[in-house]
């Protein structure tokens, strides 16, 4: 069937989605938005024991314009919320967001006047990581989940455009 039968072994057919997603999911450039204690666990994931580089996601970009994945690590308070939103808005499509730890996910035990009760009130979130703080294994698990999610996306649809 298909082109291979006509042209022999000199062709390999695939879907564009698959090829692009394969490239995307193994080369996440992350933007670490680290505000609190969760950052300690996050750092350990980068070190040799857990080695996030095995998943191709070890390269942090400290400019949101060059990043693919926004890691929101730690407590986000109301005072900081506009900055987080701005960082997200500056990221180029396609972009994904990981909410790291209960504070970022739901405000955690900071159910008070100062804390945003979950960053999904401000920006869309793709993967949530539970834990206070999450263990490094949970972070790698989230990364794999994000890769699965990315591999199911289509390049024709942009999340930001409705």
């Amino acid at each position, binding site marked *: 069937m298909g082109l291979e039968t006509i042209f022999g072994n000199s062709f390999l057919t695939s879907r564009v989605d698959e090829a692009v997603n394969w490239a995307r999911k193994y080369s996440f450039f992350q933007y670490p938005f680290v505000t609190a204690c969760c950052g300690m666990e996050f750092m350990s994931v980068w070190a040799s024991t857990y080695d996030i580089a095995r998943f191709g996601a070890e390269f942090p970009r400290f400019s949101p314009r060059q990043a693919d994945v926004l890691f929101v690590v730690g407590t986000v308070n*109301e*005072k900081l*919320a*506009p900055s987080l*939103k701005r960082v997200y808005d500056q990221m180029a499509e396609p972009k994904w967001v990981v909410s790291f730890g209960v504070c970022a996910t739901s405000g955690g035990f900071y159910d008070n006047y*100062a804390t945003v009760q979950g960053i999904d*009130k401000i920006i869309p979130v793709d993967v949530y990581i539970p834990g206070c703080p999450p263990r490094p294994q949970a972070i790698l698990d989230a990364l794999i989940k994000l890769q699965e999610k990315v591999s199911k996306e289509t390049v024709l649809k942009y999340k930001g455009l409705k």
Partner: protein
Amino acid sequence: MKAIESLKEKFSDKIISHDSFAGQDFITAKKECLKDMAVFLRDELHFDFLSDLTCVDYKGYPGRENAPRFETVYHFYSHKTKERISLKFPIEETSPNIDSLTGLWLAANWYEREVYDMYGIHFTGHPDLRRILMYEEFKGHPLRKDYPLKARQPRIPHED
């Protein structure tokens, strides 16, 4: 002589009550004498370090129904005599103000801004009394007991 004795002697008519507990001395006094006491502590008794300055809201506190609502609390330490002393000054809800100590200890500056931010106590003579933790648009003072527990004041719109 311990610092608490010297203070009791000098400000006997201004002191409302005093107490010693677990080796710590506390004095509750009228707020008018804060500056005089602070100068006396610093210059005569060598309390060179203002280690903390904070406030308590006693609204609804059992047994304090008729007492003034707020109390500012000052903790001093002397590097020379290795002594500590705490001063408390009751403040009425109707006139929430007290003298600033910024002229005596620079450390008082940010402490007083914090107390202003959280409790709405005005420090007369403070050079720059702005909020220090909350944002400028924030309404009210969150550590007051009558600030609603679940009240939120988002700076940008939230989606549910």
